[in-house]
């Protein structure tokens, strides 16, 4: 295939996300309504400080001893202070002081902390250790006491207080930048830059710095709120801004003196501090969320009801099947826009005592299907249509409690990353025993005994002692054996194994597969094996279900599917798998890639990548049945696929 052809493929599905990075940032930020309001408020604030005076009815220094300590009135909207000055006017003046002060302190903190932290983190070594020791020590010093001590050296004044605060807060910037630099330093693109001969200076400024500006910006906004609070505190105890200069803290400090005569005086500056700090915090929150790669905003909750069930009469299906899925649809609620369907009309069944392989590349809906069976879809996902029968019960309509009776007891499940799937805070014995205890209703002691026996069975050497170990003390292969022990602890009828060996070394993979096989023979359970590796399917499965873009495109006995693949996708996958065979020119390849769910084409979802595609393929295609046990979603199903082999 020529390179020119590749360009066309790529152009077909251009982007991972329909949004560019900036668009996504803007959109996420704008979704935070409070953050937007805060940003507007924060933009307004310096305006008020700069130009507010021109709009004031009362001069902020206009003393009127005949009207001291008055409450709000039409004349003085926020009342007057102890010298009869308008509190509103004073507040406007104080805004400028507070902002200037905060900017100074934050500026000092950034200038002092950020570059040092960046360099310290990037270079590491003794310089970093020394700097870190000092920073740790400064952090161990109570911040406010340090500020007070610095004021002792410099004398109390606004500037000095801000220098002190800036020094105290600079450690936060130092640590942030250091941590970020250390993290970025480990990124491969830094290695790539070094490999291409970029100088250290270039790496620090072109590669490290731009990637830490996000957290730096967030930290800056948070530092502003910290400084504003600290300035208010210091001024309040008389070590910061000194009257007659007015800051919010000073105004509070004065108000405190008149709290008996005029408690209201404490309200406006307090609210002003609160609002501004709040705005900085909310703005920072919004920034952080917008900069985060994953969306952390709460997902819209999903109604747990199904819309228009196609087959409402319970079809017992294949009597010999343990699990039978019919016309399953899974949809995910989007933060904005319509629900996204990620699994469309999936039907297959798992016969008793057999192993069914669910195959496909990432993004094809394999794992989502498995999670739908378990009732463990994320909060924003739901089975919108279809039925799942397990041992005579329909799972999608079961309550959480009823599902809990099935999960773990009748259906066991193992996952791809054994390490992350085990709870790091509990011993493996505990994690096995709790499952047994929960479902079998035996004593904890007995459950523990069984847990140890299980660990022995799954091939953990010295199981008795290792049962008391924590997950992180196991290797990946051993951890997966522990997961298997958990999944099989209640002797389930069905085991769902979601990419159980993908994270393991190939020699360990064989051992785990063998363990599963021998356990299956011993207990007669069914296995639904989810994998992208057709070799693993061949190794383990009796039947194979191939999924592409949320649909089943081919299914049947494993020999039929793998040896006589009818669907061009299956055929393409098989062909492009590098085999341990004599090398002959280029690997066959499927052009393009699996499109993301929002970009699934109409008709046959594979047709843009299919070498045999025709106009007909742009219309929906049902599953065809060329052989009694073999189903294919392709108009060419009857003919054996060619060309791509």
């Amino acid at each position, binding site marked *: 295939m020529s390179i020119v052809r590749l*360009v066309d493929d*790529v152009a077909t599905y251009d982007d991972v996300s329909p949004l560019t990075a900036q668009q996504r940032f803007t959109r996420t930020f704008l979704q935070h309504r409070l953050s937007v309001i805060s940003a507007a408020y924060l933009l307004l604030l310096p305006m008020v400080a700069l130009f507010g005076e021109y709009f004031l009815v009362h001069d902020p220094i206009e003393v009127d001893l005949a009207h001291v300590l008055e409450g709000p009135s039409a004349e003085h909207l926020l009342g007057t202070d102890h010298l009869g000055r308008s509190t509103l006017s004073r507040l406007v003046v104080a805004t400028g002081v507070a902002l200037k002060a905060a900017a100074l302190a934050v500026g000092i903190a950034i200038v002092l902390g950020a570059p040092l932290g960046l360099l310290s983190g990037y270079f590491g070594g003794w310089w970093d250790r020394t700097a870190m020791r000092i920073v740790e020590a400064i952090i161990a010093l109570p911040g406010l006491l340090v500020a007070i001590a610095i004021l002792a050296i410099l004398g109390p004044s606004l500037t000095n207080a801000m220098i002190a605060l800036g020094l105290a807060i600079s450690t936060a910037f130092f640590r942030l930048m250091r941590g970020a630099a250390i993290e970025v330093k480990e990124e491969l*693109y830094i290695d790539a830059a070094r490999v291409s001969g970029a100088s250290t200076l270039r790496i620090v400024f072109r590669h490290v710095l731009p990637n830490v500006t996000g957290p730096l910006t967030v930290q800056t906004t948070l530092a502003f709120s910290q400084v504003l609070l600290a300035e208010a505190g210091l001024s309040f105890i008389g070590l910061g801004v000194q009257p007659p200069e007015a800051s919010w803290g000073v105004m509070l400090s004065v108000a405190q003196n008149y709290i008996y005569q005029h408690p209201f005086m404490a309200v406006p500056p307090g609210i002003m501090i609160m609002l501004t700090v709040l705005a900085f915090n909310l703005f920072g929150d919004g920034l952080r969320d917008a900069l985060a790669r994953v969306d952390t905003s709460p997902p819209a909750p999903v109604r747990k009801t199904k819309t228009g069930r196609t087959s409402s009469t319970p079809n017992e299906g294949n009597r010999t099947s343990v699990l039978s899925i019919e016309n399953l649809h899974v949809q995910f609620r989007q933060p904005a826009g319509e629900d996204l369907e990620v699994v469309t009309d999936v039907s297959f069944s798992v016969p008793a005592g057999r192993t069914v392989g669910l195959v496909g590349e990432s993004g094809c809906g394999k794992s989502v299907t498995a999670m739908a069976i378990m009732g463990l879809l994320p909060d924003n996902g739901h089975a919108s249509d279809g039925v799942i029968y397990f041992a005579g019960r329909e799972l999608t309509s079961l309550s959480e409690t009823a599902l809990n009776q099935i999960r773990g007891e009748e259906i066991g499940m193992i996952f791809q990353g054994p390490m992350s799937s085990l709870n790091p805070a509990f011993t493996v014995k505990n994690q096995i025993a709790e499952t047994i205890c929960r479902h079998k209703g035996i004593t904890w002691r007995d459950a523990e005994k069984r847990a140890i026996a299980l660990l022995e069975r799954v091939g953990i050497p010295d199981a008795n002692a290792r049962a008391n170990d924590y997950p992180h003390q196991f290797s990946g292969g051993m951890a997966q054996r522990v997961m298997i022990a958990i999944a099989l602890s209640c002797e389930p009828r069905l085991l769902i194994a979601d990419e159980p060996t993908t994270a393991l070394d190939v020699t360990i993979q064989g051992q785990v597969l063998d363990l599963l096989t021998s356990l299956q023979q011993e207990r007669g359970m069914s296995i639904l094996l989810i994998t992208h590796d057709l*070799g693993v399917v061949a190794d383990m499965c009796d039947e194979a279900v191939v999924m592409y873009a949320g649909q089943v495109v081919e299914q049947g006995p494993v020999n039929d599917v793998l040896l006589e693949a009818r669907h061009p996708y299956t055929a393409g996958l098989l062909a492009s798998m590098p085999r341990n065979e004599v090398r002959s020119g*280029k690997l066959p390849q499927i052009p*393009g890639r699996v499109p993301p769910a929002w970009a699934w084409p109409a008709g046959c979802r594979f047709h843009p990548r299919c070498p045999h595609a025709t106009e007909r393929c742009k219309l929906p295609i049902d599953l065809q049945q060329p052989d009694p046990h073999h189903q294919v979603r392709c108009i060419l199903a009857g003919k054996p696929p060619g060309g791509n082999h």
Partner: protein
Amino acid sequence: MLTVEDLRVYFHVKRGLMGRRSYDVRAVDGVSFGLAHGQTLGLVGESGSGKSTIGRALLRLVGIHSGTIQLNGTDVRELRGRMLDFRRDLQAIFQDPYSLLNPSMIVADIVGEPLTIHYGLKGRQRDERVAQLLDQVGLATYHMERYPSEFSGGQRQRIAVARAIALEPQIIICDEAISALDVSTQSQVINLLKELQERLGLAYLFIAHDLAVVRHISDQIAVLYLGRIMEMGPAELICSAPRHPYTQLLISAIPVADPIEQKKRKAARSQLPPSELPSATNPPDGCPFHTRCPQAVSRCRNEVPLPRQVRPGEIVACHLID
């Protein structure tokens, strides 16, 4: 062109109070190999075998304990001022498509950076060259203005390739360059690499854990285990008739997509005793593989087997092979 002799990379590990219990982890423990123009050497091994460390040592990204690395007759370890030329000749592509590209730079800057550093290319000149490079790896000119987050894994890997070939290097080190990709994308990238090799006369040091993939692209293969080469020789020879028990194990462990064939392999495999990969921090004495070797004899436990030539162009480190 590239000769590596008795390369050793140790990592110093500190443990306990004030780091009093410290020891060396021998990530690479005496590895020698060579790589000729336009050839591909595959480095295969499971996790902890030290294969990636070798690549990083060649790139001078990790310190070398001992051994020599010669590129065109120059000892890389002694390079100081002329580092840039060495960089030009030796480039790399790494595994993780998400960490590979600087998320805050656009493609034009990522691919163009080496051009700026080495040739001082800027502005339009640079962009023209970048467009050429992108074209070579199957990306379009309009991609230049985009950020890495806007690309799929396969596309990112293409960008990385474009960057790597920008300086027309002699050697590219591909460190698990395709492991994170989907099957259909994997073959696309492998084909791209092979095509570029033909056109540009590149040599690859292709590091991967999947022997089947490595076989497909390599002329020579070195099988690594716990920092040592177990077997090294022509790819076809090693994959079709492996001599070392570890290579045999590795090959037999790769599942094939043929159910009939695989059932046989499975039956053979299940005869083997289960074993665990020893920790690199605490490698076994003698032959590192003896703890898992079905044929191990007492000699294997005590004596480190030295690599020796068993067939033309092939060396094996095993006591059992004469």
